């Protein structure tokens, strides 16, 4: 079963704009992670936020986590055409398994 549900399913923005993607989950977690997948390729880890953290930054990425609402958001600032990809949130609640959502398709128009 899928633990994380991303929202929206698809997002189209202009280069230079910010992209915000949301993820909700159902059970308690140890950490939440965001991954990126270019078409037909493997997934690339972007950022991990632990359950006791509320916000984390990495370059143009900002992730927030609200465990009371069981939700997370990924913000990509100053988007570029190269950011076009699918983005997945994944939750780890068992120290052996990562459960993924269905993903968000982000299109950044030049």
């Amino acid at each position, binding site marked *: 079963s899928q633990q994380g549900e991303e929202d929206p399913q698809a997002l189209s923005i202009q280069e230079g704009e910010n992209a915000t993607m949301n993820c909700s989950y159902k059970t308690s977690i140890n*950490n939440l992670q965001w991954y990126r997948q270019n078409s037909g390729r*493997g*997934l690339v880890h972007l*950022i991990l936020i632990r359950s006791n953290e509320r916000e984390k930054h990495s370059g143009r990425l900002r992730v927030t986590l609200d465990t009371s609402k069981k939700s997370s958001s990924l913000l990509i600032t100053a988007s570029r055409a190269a950011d076009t990809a699918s983005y997945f949130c994944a939750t780890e609640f068992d120290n*052996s398994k*990562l459960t*993924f959502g*269905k993903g968000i398709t982000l299109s950044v128009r030049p």
Partner: protein
Amino acid sequence: SQTIHQWPATLVQPVGSPLSLECTVEGTSNPNLYWYRQAAGRGLQLLFYSVGIGQISSEVPQNLSASRPQDRQFILSSKKLLLSDSGFYLCAWSVRPPGTVGYTFGSGTRLTVV
């Protein structure tokens, strides 16, 4: 540095034929290893994970099996493929215990069963 190799990149197999996908990790010891499948337009479904040699946990009962004959080798197999086995198969590894850094994924195998 750690690398993960997965092959083949693409595979077209007839229904009823056997399958063997191989994944190897370099530059680390005692990794956790994972097989995921991604169907078109869907997220990743965890198929198998392994925390050590010969230790395999199955998440979804199906036509597939996995083995870990060596510390850094993970094999996905089937004796007889079904049409429903088509998909994008991804191998991944993580440090043990996981939870401090993310998973590293291979480049995937696109399997088409015809």
